[in-house]
């Protein structure tokens, strides 16, 4: 594949991009268009499948194969494609409503199976396309059009959910941090099987500033806990330590010893550690780990499916239609 040298321009379709000015989706699109040449694949081998939502317009803007499907079902549709066409690189684009409300079931099962999908979950903590209702990641008490007195639902974390669903690769990044976003895409692309990337994405129209703490240069370094494999987990002011019960805690660096700080290991098979990491940030976003939470090896679904078929054929021989039809108890009428 090394002969293929494509550029960002090759992956930019002729469709006019129609997100609101300032929408975080633009920067994610741009990062993706720049990253795609790195895959080393010809354009026809790449497919983007999305659900419904502002974010799900994404495939139209990429010069690859693409399908803008229906609300919440992209992981299911993409699983069918990826399993039957293991030669393709299949990406799913989804939103917090699309992936976690209506499509929650498909998301967890795609991750559980380790379907060969790279799932990009654009989390703006709001329903953008339907003009601003609270989503499963909106903080409790949020005032929106459908919750004028404050939402009552407890939000959940896509990272915790994915880990609970046995996801083999789980990461978080931010729309505005192009470098980190690109590194995360790269790590996901290299992973075999499902990869879930939660991307914090600003919706300037219906949920503006939702991620300001982790974007503003004055607060960012205090809030972000950058996860790097083999490195201690710290922000500018805090470090992550493990208490006597094995739970993780964030403490001011002044109160702890450097040696107490947890060294990040994304490859631990047991998801307990990654889950504990995912619990550090609650919806207040006081301390937010970003990076790869978990990256472990597990046979991808399509590999298992095709190995099984090959094994059956090796054992029973390739199916012969005439033999199938004439199987069982037959009799001859003269």
């Amino acid at each position, binding site marked *: 594949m090394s002969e293929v040298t494509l550029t960002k321009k090759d992956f930019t*379709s002729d*469709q006019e991009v129609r997100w609101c000015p300032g929408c975080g989706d633009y920067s994610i699109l741009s990062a993706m268009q720049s990253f795609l040449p790195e895959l080393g694949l*010809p*354009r*026809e*081998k790449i*497919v983007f*499948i999305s659900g*419904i939502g502002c974010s799900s317009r994404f*495939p*139209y803007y*990429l*010069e*690859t*194969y*693409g*399908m*803008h*499907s*229906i609300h919440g*079902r992209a992981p*299911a*549709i*993409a*699983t*069918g*494609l*990826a*399993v*039957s*066409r293991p*030669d*393709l690189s299949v990406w799913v684009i989804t939103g917090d409503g699309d992936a976690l409300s209506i499509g929650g*079931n*498909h998301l*967890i*099962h795609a991750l559980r199976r380790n379907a060969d999908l790279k799932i990009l979950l654009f989390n703006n903590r709001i329903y953008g396309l339907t003009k601003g209702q609270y989503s499963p990641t909106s903080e409790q008490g949020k005032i929106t059009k459908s919750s004028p007195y404050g939402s009552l639902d407890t939000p959940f974390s896509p990272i915790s959910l994915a880990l609970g669903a046995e996801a083999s690769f789980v990461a978080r990044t931010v729309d505005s941090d192009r470098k980190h976003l690109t590194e995360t895409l790269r790590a996901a692309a290299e992973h075999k099987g499902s990869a879930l990337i939660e991307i914090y994405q600003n919706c300037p129209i219906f949920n503006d500033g939702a991620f300001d703490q982790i974007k503003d240069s004055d607060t960012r370094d205090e809030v972000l806990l950058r996860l790097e494999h083999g490195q201690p987990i710290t922000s500018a002011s805090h470090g992550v330590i493990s208490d006597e019960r094995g739970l993780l805690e964030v403490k001011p660096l002044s109160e702890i010893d450097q040696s107490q700080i947890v060294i990040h290991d994304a490859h631990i098979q047991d998801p307990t550690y990654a889950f504990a990491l995912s619990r550090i940030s609650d919806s207040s976003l006081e301390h937010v780990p970003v990076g790869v939470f978990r990256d472990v090896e597990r046979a991808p679904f399509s590999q298992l*499916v095709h190995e*099984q*078929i090959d094994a*059956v*054929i090796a054992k*029973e*021989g*390739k*199916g012969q*239609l*005439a033999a*199938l*039809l*004439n*199987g*069982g*108890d*037959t*009799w*001859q*009428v*003269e």
Partner: protein
Amino acid sequence: MRVSKPVVTLDQVVIRFAGDSGDGMQLTGDRFTSDTAMLGNDLRTLPNYPAEIRAPQGTVPGVSSFQLHFGDHHIQTPGDAPDVLVVMNPAALRANMADTPRGATIIVDKDEFTTRNLSKVGYATNPIEDGSLDSYKVHALPLTSMTVGALAHLKLTRKEAERSKNMFALGLLSWMYHRPTTLTENFLTAKFGKKPQILEANLTAYRAGWNYGETTEDFAVSYEVKPAPMEAGVYRNISGNVALSYGLIAAAEIAGVQIFLGAYPITPASDILHELSKLKKFGVITFQAEDEIAGVGAALGASYGGGLGITTTSGPGIALKSEAIGLGVMLELPLVIVDVQRGGPSTGLPTKTEQSDLLQAMYGRNGESPCVVLAPATPSDCFDMAIEACRIALEYRTPVFLLSDGYIANGSEPWRIPSVESLPEIKVNLATVPNGENGEFLPYLRDPETLARAFAVPGTKGLEHRIGGVEKADRTGTISYDPANHDFMVRTRAAKVGGVKVPDLVIDDPSDCAEVLLLGWGSTYGPIWSAVQVLRETGHNIAQAHLRHLNPFPKNLGDVLHSYKKVILPEMNLGQLARMLRGEYLVDVVAFDQVRGMPFTTEQIVNAALEVLNV
């Protein structure tokens, strides 16, 4: 083994095996059916079992039965009423007496007619002894104790030994009707080969039942039913679900595509998932999805990749799949949706048959969302119609519904096995090069003949493009909200489905002057055909026609309907096709409906027809 008693020749027999769900009646019926098929009789079967896996033992709701109709002539129904009823307990008698005509033979396991079992189903006295069965030929036999006795030499508990009593009954019936024994012996050996003790028990009970018939004075005669004249060829007995599965495999082989089945288990469709799951050596991918939506979604994804996406379900599953099927309509991708209909609405009657999803298949989606709708007429027709569904889906790039139902799915009949060479052709015609004037690829440029759009699968160099559920511009397929374009696209999709080429409706009217037409669709073919034979034998002129294509209808359907004074249409719903025909052709068809979870009897249709014929 050879029968030595006097032999009476019969032209046809209807036998019903009935017992508790745990008594193995379905297996018994299946075995008797296979042995009967091998003898060359024509036959049809009707398994009838409760929705509960183990309904309370000994109760009427827990009764499971299997009816088989076989004869020396063409047989198209499982029979209106049993000539022979085999009952394994009082509940089975209670549940089946209403269907059993006076004079019928009833074989009873009298060991099970204990005070306790009798009172469970409300018998104050024992019907075997109180004279209430005097107008029947009753053989009250100690089936259970004879079975236990025959197995005394094996180290089995009484409970274990009793389990083989269905094989004793099967042996006895096999003796009565001269069924060959080697097939069932081979079957048992294959099934229980790894459990020698159980194999021995079943074989011994089976042979003991046969020997009992041969030696006891209770049965003075045995019966034979000569083979039915059938077209020359190799035959096997096949159920609708198996035939349908084989049809899907055959279509994929002919078309040279990979099958992807996305399904979520549901009665009575699960057996197609089970069957295809066994056939991985054909390269079939079976995907047991997390729900019905994922099943159809994944199938659509596989079709998008150039495979043949199939999803199998029953009515409640279709309800869940509707939105994704609409996406299939919009994307214009091949998709086969198999609906093995059952009683509805909601959970309804999961194990009983109905034809009440026709309007759901036709109209059960948002927007103008046309799909092709087909329906097999008999168990073996499921094979042909599955190929037809795949052919239309692949060649026209459209979702196709295949409406089977619980009756033909589980029922079986002899099938003349077609040669592979005789199967129809399927042309997929994928796009491989740009089709636009300026070297671009236009995914919604259409074949002028079929109106099928150009279909390039991912991996095809130079034809990269995006599709989606949002309305698309003609030719280019890009998003379009233009009113005129939407109007054009809606009409074009309708024209494509409406223009699918389907064979003309064939009329069967030997008199050539019938004024009344008996029309049907789907699984009512058998009872309608049988009723037509009865009516003609009694001097009536009546025509028969059967629809296997429901959308689009055959081109000659309107002319056919208008050429009869009356059109009678039996349906297992409240007149769904009747409504469509009235709307489409302004013909006031006489709807004859029933939703009892059971197929029509021949008699019901004869009577309905007589009401029209005799005015």
